């Protein structure tokens, strides 16, 4: 096996593994008992999609995909923080209602 064939094989295998991890994270997003579990799964999916961008850049040679990965790393963080703050404030509101 030449090294180019090995690289093709490695790209295919990595695609399968990363897509599998994306699918498993989606299962956790669907069943996750609390909102925090779902936010963790969503965060995990964002990180997996960054990995997909990297593998796709190697597979196709389109380096613009790395810009997508860079933007995703920043925007995914904002989504996580927004959802976490929402969960926190929702809990605080519930506590206030219980105390009244």
């Amino acid at each position: 096996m030449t090294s180019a064939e090995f690289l093709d094989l490695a790209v295919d295998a990595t695609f399968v593994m990363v897509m599998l991890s994306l699918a498993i994270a989606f299962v956790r997003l669907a069943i996750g008992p609390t909102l925090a579990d779902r936010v963790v799964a969503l965060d995990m999916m964002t990180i997996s999609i960054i990995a997909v961008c990297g593998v796709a850049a190697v597979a196709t040679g389109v380096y613009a995909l790395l810009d997508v990965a860079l933007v995703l790393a920043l925007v995914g963080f904002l989504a996580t923080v927004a959802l976490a703050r929402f969960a926190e404030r929702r809990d605080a509101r519930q506590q206030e209602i219980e105390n009244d």
Partner: protein
Amino acid sequence: MTNILIGFFLLLGGFFALVAAVGVIRLPDVLTRMHASTKAGVLGSSLILIGCAIYLHETDITARVVATILFLMLTTPIGAHMIGRASVRDLRTKHDEVDNGA
């Protein structure tokens, strides 16, 4: 030789991404799931991006990859911290139930 190195980085990154996903589905509560998704997930993505930088082999692309990894390592702990703080109440009620049951 370079191709083998790139393939090695990609396969290792894919493996760690898969380990992170298995951790997220198998571990018992929010904090342990977060531990799997943040650490193993970021390591997997970083290894794949490093493989990508070696493959494309240009200065500006390497700079972009370094910036992406830096942002990932900067933002993921902050996000995890926020989720952990948000889930304190759930965890506390769960522990109280366990203590009362014992």
